[in-house]
């Protein structure tokens, strides 16, 4: 098994096993608020398969990326709406 992948979540570094889905990494690191709804309510993943768009976060500067559809990569910067 290759080495762990280093990512940052809201500026804090985290180390995850290769092929970890971003949504999973966020959940493991205790993120409970992935994004906010129009009225400011907290949102987290719902479908886990790219359909509901509830899991959106900013990945490497790209806003509204579906975290359940992206694998963690070394140096990846993830920002949630905490």
């Amino acid at each position, binding site marked *: 098994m290759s080495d762990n992948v280093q990512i940052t979540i809201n500026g804090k570094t985290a180390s995850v096993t290769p092929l970890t889905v971003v949504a999973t990494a966020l959940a493991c690191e205790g993120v409970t608020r992935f994004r906010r709804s*129009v009225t400011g309510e907290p949102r987290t993943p719902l479908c886990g398969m790219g359909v509901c*768009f509830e899991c*959106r976060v900013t990945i490497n500067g790209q*806003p*509204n990326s579906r975290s359940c559809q992206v694998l963690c990569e070394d140096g990846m910067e993830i920002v949630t709406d905490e």
Partner: protein
Amino acid sequence: MRQSYDVIIVGAGIIGASCAAECAASGLSVLVLDKGPIGGGVTGTCMGHIVILDDSEAQFALTRYSQRLWNELATKLPEQAEYVRCGTIWVAADQEEMQEVHRKYKSYTENGLEAEILDNKALLKAEPHLAADLAGGLLVKQDSVIYPPAAAYYLLKQSHKNGAVVRSASEVKAILPEGAVGFSCGTIITGSVVINACGCQAPEFSKMAPIKKRKGHLAITERRDGFLNHQIIELGYLKSAHAAAGDSVAFNIQPRKTGQMLVGSSRQNDSDDPSVQHHILSKMIKRAFKYMPDLRDVQVTRTWTGFRPATDDKLPLIGPDGDSGKIWIAAGHEGLGITCALGTAKLLCDMIMNRPSEIDTKPYCPSRFAKGNTEDV
């Protein structure tokens, strides 16, 4: 619950809700019944553009009258109704369509509406993300946008304040000729009159209502504040919307108060299937890219479909269903049900209460579809 009302309204879409608000405000005792939730019909899956159209005199009269009523209500609407008077820009792709801009301008301004002709430069200033090669457009200023299910909810709440009883999850099995409704459990509730406001389902209770379903697709985007300022519709829409047969798409985009954009639209006549059809959706999205290339960078987050309750002469049915004076109908507004809701309710309530109306109700009279009368339409 009492077992007798002045008015029983079947259907709590925007039409039923508007009728309830109007009847209750006029002092009638009202019962509203819907088989699903409030606004769970096409009112919950449509665009919510309050728009004046002039395909016919009767259409112009009703859309204008009704829009005026929305304008009067605007300040009272709750935040959730997301009312914005953003105006409409009718976009002309070429010089041929510019002629339609001029015709529409003349017709609207002669009737006291505020409109402005935009050349290519003015068009791009108003909407910087439109394609650079469009000929121009017509800005119609008083058109607005609303979130229809929240508006329906508000109208029902108003009716409730005036004593109306509103029941969701109450499916009516039969509208009885003596002015009553029956449920599958055998219960019958009587009214002085019953209003059939069942949208696409209205023909289930009224043999006279020739309402057909016209399917439409919609897509909503992520929030992009400031990307879009007006509701924009291509003038080619007239050609495609009028094509009686066949499937068509036209560019139509709406700014939501949330910063999202609602992208339409498609028209299909012979589909009963509510699923999203990807060949239609992709045609619709490609059309949008043609008019607004920068949309390629904007994510769509959800897609869905809805069925417009359409009639052959593109006018709704508002008036008595038969001669008894007991059964009334308000349905068949196709793509203008939100726009025409408040006007429809006023006209119907006027007729029920024998009051004079502000506009002529004859063009919408359901009897135009009765046997022997079909030659006139």
